[in-house]
């Protein structure tokens, strides 16, 4: 029996993949025709091609795979004629083949609206690898032109993805959309506006309600004209205005197609012709075309089941899940289920943080029991969970708003955890893998990690959207089995960081190899090396030099690695105070080595683009001018930010600059579980943002208030009051104790805010240790800190003075050549060539 598949796209390939694993495959011959010259590739991740031009990475299977599976693959061959009575097809090469079963998997083509000028140079669509190649080649040509602009026609899922891609290519980019809002099919007004503002922040121009009347230009596109008499300059246009199913072959053969295109399919994916099936984006099922892989993969499964007459072949569900999470655009966007239900069927709960750019809406059945759908913009962390609750029709918690707001106040887990999902819940909809399957693999010991689950089931290999849930599932499963109880460092050290630190101190272990021999096992890895390096630093005041090989890269080279493998240089500027002479010194070094120069957010100056071999030369000059390492590369004290304080400011209560310098000098070079930042403000107006730091001091009438465990970054937290008002000396004593206690007890890469979160008893407990000394260790902590302070040495000074240490800054062992690097101009400076 001969099965023929026409179309070797994602869905056509899925059919072959399922066929190759079907128990009855031996009774059939399978032949596949593909018009494109490559075997099937991953269109969903097509945009990745822009970053590496690596088509192999997108391949879904190789020619060898097809050969081994016994499937005849004929790429670069277009089927042009179909005779459903004689069960015969003809290709453009004139080849004729008979079939018993035919599967149309012809996919779709981008819809190009009938606007005059579509044929001009610089106008593209976005569907195949060849399209992307043409876009990249053209972008290369126009990029050098000052102010080169690309325009994307269509503000839907794909259009926004294309927009991000051309933005990343360094082209100014605009999106034009016919509808009055972005992603009209997935978002409501407020969600779309939030998204629009986010995109504007990314530098994307968004123009709504634009109906294009002409693509203008003489040969090549120069601008677009719209019905409202406005126009927009464009050196390149990518049209992404929707898709049209490829039904031309079926139509010609007399197979029934829909009034607006698409090959009609029933719930078994049968067409109007006997034994002819249709799957993927070419299929019109329940009056809809589904432009997503998951429903396409489902179709492949059902069609194969029908052809093979499987007992449990199943049929297509009545309602198809069109939930989507937008990838790549630089901000989260997701929608699931009913996005805009009728008001009489549902009520909505909306969270809208306009300044933060977050919009969340969930739609709930009138009786409050079921989740019908929702929209998430700016923060889609809850998407997977919400999507599961929706798909599995799970009961909602009594306060459904917790689902998007989290439980405010104490206790409780908002909504369902991954373990509450029913076994039948489909976790990976692309590969149709249920929670039950995954859990039984875990419980039978067939898999013990996400990687192994992926290998056993293929879950996560389609759109990849379910990967976070897989991770949760493994973690929760292990926890429920009591398997992971402690946060041990890694496979080489079965201890927490605190235990490891205690052991190192107790046994007076001095080197990493010794630690492995005495208390570890095996040969170490990239996790335990820096963790132990940090421990050696906080126990013995060891700099990053003696054991450079166990330091994270930044510490090994005493500088931050940048996008193109060059480094940045940040000299310490305590408290942000700098003399004109020192400014001139930085300026002349920057000029000499042609370094991109910028004022940082930490009140100092960062010099970017230094080559590995230049680092010691640059530091030699900086050190001669009186600078020291700023430790911007280390998990260590960064800056103590100051405001100008009573020195000049009319409100100042104390000389905050002097105090900030004193503190920064005291703790400079101090290594810690994560980076440390401080701030000193001269009064309660708080211009130094001290409460956003790991420790902050604010001058008040009677002295200073000391705040601890604040954080900027991704999850901002205000520091909490530890003590005050106290005088400067007491503040420093408390700081010594607080910092040392943190250095001792925190896990690797846990910042103070997160550490406090996990500290039982919270700030009150911390106060009792630091201020009231309930543990009786205050003196010990102070002495230990004083030892570290006294042990300080500038590691850059060590590194340039010792030829053996300096050797590590040679780019190549066997030649003095330096590495070839490409930079491009940026304003009056330079930057790395974009990825």
């Amino acid at each position, binding site marked *: 029996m001969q099965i023929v598949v026409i179309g070797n796209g994602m869905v056509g390939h899925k059919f072959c993949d399922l066929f190759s694993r079907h128990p009855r495959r031996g009774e059939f011959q399978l032949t596949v025709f593909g018009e494109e010259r490559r075997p099937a590739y991953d269109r969903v991740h097509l945009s990745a091609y822009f970053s590496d031009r690596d088509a192999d990475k997108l391949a879904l299977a190789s020619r060898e795979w097809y050969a081994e599976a016994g499937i005849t693959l004929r790429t670069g061959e277009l089927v042009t004629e179909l005779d459903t009575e004689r069960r015969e097809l003809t290709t453009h090469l004139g080849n004729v083949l008979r079939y018993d079963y035919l599967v149309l998997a012809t996919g779709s083509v981008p819809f190009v609206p009938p606007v005059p000028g579509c044929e001009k140079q610089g106008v593209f669509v976005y569907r195949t690898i060849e399209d992307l190649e043409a876009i990249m080649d053209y972008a290369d040509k126009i990029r050098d032109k000052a102010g080169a602009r690309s325009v994307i026609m269509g503000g839907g899922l794909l259009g926004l993805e294309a927009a991000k891609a051309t933005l990343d290519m360094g082209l100014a980019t605009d999106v034009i959309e016919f509808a009055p809002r972005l992603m009209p099919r997935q978002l409501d007004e407020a969600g779309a506006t939030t998204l629009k503002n986010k995109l504007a922040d990314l530098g994307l121009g968004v123009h709504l309600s634009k109906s294009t009347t002409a693509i203008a230009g003489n040969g090549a596109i120069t601008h677009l004209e719209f019905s409202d008499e406005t126009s927009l300059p464009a050196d390149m246009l990518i049209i992404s205005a929707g898709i049209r199913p490829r039904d031309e072959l079926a139509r010609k053969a007399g197979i029934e197609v829909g009034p607006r295109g698409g090959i009609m399919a029933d719930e078994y994916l049968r067409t109007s012709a006997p034994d002819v099936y249709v799957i993927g984006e070419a299929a019109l099922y329940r009056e809809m075309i589904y432009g997503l892989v998951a429903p396409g993969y489902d179709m492949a499964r059902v069609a194969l089941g029908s052809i093979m007459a499987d007992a449990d072949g199943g049929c297509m569900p009545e309602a198809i899940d069109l939930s989507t999470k937008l990838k790549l655009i630089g901000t989260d966007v997701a929608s699931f289920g009913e996005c805009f239900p009728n008001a009489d069927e549902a009520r909505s709960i909306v969270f809208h943080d306009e300044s933060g750019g977050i919009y969340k809406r969930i739609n709930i059945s009138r009786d409050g029991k079921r989740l019908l759908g929702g929209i998430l913009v700016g923060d889609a962390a809850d998407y997977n969970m919400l999507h599961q609750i929706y798909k599995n029709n799970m009961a909602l918690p009594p306060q459904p708003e917790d689902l998007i707001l989290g439980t405010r106040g104490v206790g409780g887990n908002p909504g369902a955890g991954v373990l509450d999902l029913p076994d039948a819940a489909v976790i990976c909809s692309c590969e149709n893998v249920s929670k039950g399957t995954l859990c039984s693999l875990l419980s039978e010991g067939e898999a013990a990690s996400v990687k192994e689950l992926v290998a056993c089931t293929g879950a996560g290999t389609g759109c990849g959207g379910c990967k976070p849930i897989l991770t949760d599932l493994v973690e929760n499963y292990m926890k429920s089995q009591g398997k992971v109880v402690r946060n041990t460092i890694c496979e080489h050290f079965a201890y927490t960081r605190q235990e490891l630190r205690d052991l190192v101190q107790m046994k007076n272990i001095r080197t990493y*190899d010794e630690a492995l021999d005495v208390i570890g096992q095996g040969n*170490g890895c990239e996790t335990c090396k820096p963790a132990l390096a940090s421990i050696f630093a906080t126990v013995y005041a060891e700099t990053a030099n003696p054991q450079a090989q*166990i330091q994270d890269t930044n510490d090994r080279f005493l500088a931050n690695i940048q*996008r*193109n*493998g060059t480094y940045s240089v940040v000299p310490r500027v305590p408290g942000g105070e700098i003399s004109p002479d020192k400014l001139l010194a930085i300026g002349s070094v920057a000029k000499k080595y042609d370094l991109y120069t910028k004022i940082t957010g930490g009140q100092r100056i960062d010099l970017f683009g230094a080559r590995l071999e230049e680092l010691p030369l640059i530091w030699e000059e900086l050190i001669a001018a009186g600078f020291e390492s700023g430790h911007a590369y280390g998990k260590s004290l960064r800056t103590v930010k100051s405001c100008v304080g009573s020195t000049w400011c009319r409100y100042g209560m104390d000389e905050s600059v002097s105090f900030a310098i004193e503190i920064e000098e005291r703790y400079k070079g101090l290594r810690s579980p994560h980076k440390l930042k401080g701030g000193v403000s001269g009064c309660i107006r708080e211009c130094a943002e001290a409460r956003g730091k790991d420790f902050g001091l604010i001058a008040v009438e009677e002295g200073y208030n000391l705040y601890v465990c604040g954080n900027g970054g991704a999850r901002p937290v205000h520091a909490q009051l530890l003590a005050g008002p106290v005088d400067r000396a007491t503040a420093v004593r408390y700081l010594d104790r607080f910092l040392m206690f943190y250095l001792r007890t925190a896990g690797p890469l846990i910042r103070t805010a997160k550490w406090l979160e996990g500290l039982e008893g919270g700030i009150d407990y911390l106060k009792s240790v630091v201020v009231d000394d309930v543990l009786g260790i205050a003196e010990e902590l102070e002495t230990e800190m004083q030892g570290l302070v006294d042990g300080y040495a500038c590691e850059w000074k060590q590194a340039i003075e010792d030829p053996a240490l300096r050797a*590590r800054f040679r780019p190549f*062992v066997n030649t003095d050549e330096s*590495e070839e690097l490409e930079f491009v101009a940026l304003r009056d400076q330079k930057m790395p060539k974009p990825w």
Partner: protein
Amino acid sequence: MTAYTTTPLTDVTTWFRAGRTDQFPVGAGAVIKYRDRQIAVFYFNRTERWYACQNLCPHKLENVLGRGLIGEQDGIPKVACPMHKRTFSLETGENLNGDCPPVAVYPVKVENDYVYVGFAD
């Protein structure tokens, strides 16, 4: 990427002298240049084994692997890219914690205190 292909011992036609053993860091990597290729060479002092792979990380195509931390996972020697911590087996080149394509690995031998890397051209 195409400049680099894994070279099994049996295919080696050139043993390229990369440098004296003491020019390489102990328990870390350094980079050599062979024609216009950058090759990272690692010395695992605990097992006294040498490994080599392309310096180019397949993730973002930066020449940085030689500056990464080395270690082992379930007994497999590996290097962690300093940029985004993708890890690669130094035996097979496989990406151990993600879906990057593999890196090319090359055989290494030490003779009379010199390190040699094997190439097929």
